[in-house]
Structures are given as C-alpha cells and as structure tokens.
C-alpha cells in the first residue's frame, strides 16, 4: 500500500476524483433530461411507481459513511458496469420499437451510455491506483430477462434511468469521500483494504 499513499499517487487520486465528480455531475444532469424525454416519448406517467427492477443495482445503502474507499469503488464499478449493459439493452429495444422515428431519444440514450462507460473506466483507474485490479467482467451483468411486454420494457427503462440518476448523486458523494486526505491509519474513509 506504500505506493498508493505516495504523494504522486495521492495527487493522481485527487485529480481522478475531481474529474470523476465533474463527469458524474454532467451525467446526472443528462440523465434527468433524458428521464423527461423518456417519460414523454414512451407515453408514461412521470409519477409512476416502479418496483425494484431486477438486475438494476440499487443505490440505497446502509451505513454509507462507514464504507471504506475500496468498498465504495467496487460497489460503484459493479453498478456502472450493470448500467452499461442495461442501457445498451434499452437502446436496442428503443431502436426496435421506434426505429428511426425517435432519433433524439436514441441519441440521448447513446450519450448517457457513453458517459456511463467513461465513468466505469474512470473507476477502474481509481481501483488500479489502489493497487487493486478491477474485478473481471466475465459472467457479469444482469441475468437474462424473461421476455417482457412492450409496456413492461418501458417501465423497466424508467426504473433503470431513475436508479442511474440516484447513483450519479451517490457517486459524487463517494468520490468526495475518497478525495479527502486519508487519516493515515487505514480507517474509513481512507483507502484501506476492505477486511
């Protein structure tokens, strides 16, 4: 861990965190705009209650303030990798349903997918800085979905975007915790190895 605490590593970490916070801030803003567009184009009710969607990692967490830096990075990475797959599915479904009729929605989805991928990559860099190889992606991703009706697909899409907007807020907070100077003895919120 000595390498992870060197001055240059600390600087790099702060830099990655700062850029990550900006990235995720822009992503959240775009996701919120996309939610409005999605609800409108898919003919949904904005206040519709969507039950927890299978395969969508919930942002909700208990004892958030007690998490170690590594835990934060790992949970974030797992989430954004899952969102990458889910958004790609949504994009595919949207193209099948609406074809070229709604290029704007398709473009907005693609833009958010790009940002999600970029952030996932960003998280991998942060993990590597902690001398931790990011876990492999083999076998990752949500379980294969039973065939959903068109309406169910739309509702699921709403659930995915809402949870992503929630994650974007959490990720900014997580990165700010990470960017705090480590207390030095490896206790949370420093970047100690998880037990």
């Amino acid at each position, binding site marked *: 861990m000595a390498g992870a605490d060197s001055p240059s590593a600390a600087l790099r970490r702060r830099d990655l965190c700062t850029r990550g916070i900006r990235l995720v801030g822009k992503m959240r803003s775009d996701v919120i705009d996309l939610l409005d567009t999605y609800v409108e184009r898919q003919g949904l009710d904005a206040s519709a209650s969507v039950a927890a969607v299978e395969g969508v990692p919930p942002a*909700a*967490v*208990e004892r958030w303030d007690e998490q170690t830096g590594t835990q934060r990075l790992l949970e974030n990475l797992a989430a954004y990798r899952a969102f990458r797959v889910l958004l790609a599915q949504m994009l595919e479904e949207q193209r099948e349903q609406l074809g070229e009729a709604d290029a704007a929605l398709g473009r907005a989805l693609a833009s958010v997918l790009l940002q999600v991928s970029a952030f996932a990559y960003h998280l991998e860099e942060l993990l590597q800085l902690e001398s931790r190889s990011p876990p492999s992606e083999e076998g990752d991703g949500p379980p294969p979905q039973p065939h959903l009706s068109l309406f169910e697909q739309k509702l699921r899409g709403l659930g995915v975007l*809402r949870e992503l907007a929630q994650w974007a*807020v959490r990720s900014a907070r997580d990165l700010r915790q990470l960017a705090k100077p480590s207390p030095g003895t490896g206790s949370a919120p420093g970047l100690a190895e998880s037990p």
Partner: protein
Amino acid sequence: DSHIQYERVGADVTMKCGSMDWDAAVTWTANGTDIDESHLNGSYLILKNVDLTQSGQYSCYEGSSWHLKYQTYLRVGTPPKEPVLMCRSNNYPKGFYCSWHLPTPTYIPNSFNISVIHGTKEMVCEKDAVPKNRCHIRYLQLFSTVKYKVTLTVTNALGKNFTTLTFDEFGIVKPDPPESVVAKPVPNNPRRLEVSWQNPSSWPDPESFPLKFFLRYRPLILDQWQHVELSDGTSHTITDAYAGKEYIIQVAAKDNDIGTWSDWSVAVHATPWTEEPKHLTTEAQITETTSTSTSSFMAPPTTKICDKGAMVGSGAVAVCWTAGLVVAAYSVLFI
C-alpha cells in the same frame, strides 16, 4: 369529586348535581359566582350554545346545608382541524425532522402521534423536548428511491384529525441559511464590497456534501436585487456597487446536487469605500453659497454631489447627473 368535562363550542350542556334528585333544591356557581335560576331545570344546570368564555369551574351545593354535592371543570373547545405538517432535512445526510401545528387553536389539550414509514419499515421519530411539536429521525439508508410516508394524528377529547406527507430523501433537503455574513468596503475601491459567510453550523459535513450559494444585493434606495450564484467558496467581491450608496446583502445556501435553497440569511448592510469628505467640501460649499432660495434642490453639504459612479457621458463632456439637475434647476429659476 372534581372532574373535567369537555364540550364543543355551540353545544348545549346539561349538568346534573351528582346524585341529587331532579326536584332537589340546589345552587349552582360558576367560578364562585351564583348562577341565576333561569339557567336551571329543576336541579339540572342548562347551558345553551356554550362559548369559550363559559369555561370554568361549576359547583353545585345542596340548598339549605350548602354542602358541595358536585363539581366539574368545564372546558369548551373544538375538535382538531387537519394539522399542518412539514418535514425537512437541514442536516443531510444525518437525518430529518418533522414539525407540526394546528391551523386554529382548539382551546383544550391535544395529543399528537406521528408515524414514519419507509417502504415497509416503520421508523421511530424521536420527539424533541424543545420545541414541543417536533421530532427527528436518523436516516438508516441513503440514496434510496423509496419514498417516506409520514402520518400525523392529532387527538383531543372532542375528536381527531390527521394529515399525511409523502416525500423522497432528496426532496426535503433544505439547509439552514449561511451564518456570520459579513460585508466590508474595500479600501480605495469605491465600487467594491467584500462579502464573506460561513456554512450553516447544522450542516454536518460540508466537505463531502458541499453547499453552493446564492448572493443577492441591492442599494437601499432601489427595489431590484442583483443576484450571483456561487458554486464554491464562502466569499465574493461585489464589483458593481454604486459608489457611496448603502447596500443590503443576503446569502442563501443549497446542497450542490439535491434539495432546495435555504431561506435568506440575516441581512447585512455595507457602504463601499468613499474618498475623504474634505476633497469634496469645496464643491459643496460653492454650491451651497449660490443656492439661497432653492434649498429643496440641494443635497446637504456633507453628501457628495457628484461621484464617479453617477457620471453620464465621457471625456470632456462628462456631466455628473446630479450636478446637471442642479444646473437645470437654476436655469429654470433665472429664465
């Protein structure tokens, strides 16, 4: 035996004198004062269409012996109307509080019961000692999309009522206003004011949950505010103040990502730096000595007639607008 009796405003109340027969001779008093017999039906006391002023101690005495046979404390009041409930998180991410009140008084004691449900989980809202109608709750989970449902029930002897509030974690975040707002002039800068403030002390972790700020300022003589939004830092220099004018300044705060703006801070007043008055005394004296009959157009000698911020035009033709008014006034007089 003394007891309390609650009755609605406008009700008709009949009081029996304990176990005394209807035809017994009795005397009723209200707060020690005899009640006229016209209010009696036998030994029963009849109060029609009671109002709040009729609250008090009612006693019944046996006619001849003056033994106290019955005593009651009548409290006239109303059943509760729908209470007003508010929930807010000014200490995010620690938790939130809910506070409530009745829109109109009931004039009798009320008890409040609050329930907080998050999804399927019932949470305990701990009542504050002060203020009374308030309770607080610690977040067990953060970043949840599941809504909170808060139900407040108010009960008194004459009835009950309730209200429900549903919200999500982000929606109720509203910090307290910034504290210790200070505004100072900047030496040798007649158009600047330096403003600084602090994060509200109730906000537990400004490093991980940074606040952004909104500053508003205007000279006292104008109604329109100028606004500046600041994404970080707890200070700002106003650079377009009108020279010599007193300003009123306020700041508000908001979590960088979620929730709503705080109320405005306490207002502070400040006036930008001005040159020493002696530099302008000559000007003021000249103007004063030539204006014997037009005092209504003249500024008092200690006030600057003309300052850089009030210039109109440029170069050789630059004219101070207040001086221009004075000149125009003289012209009218001498036409």
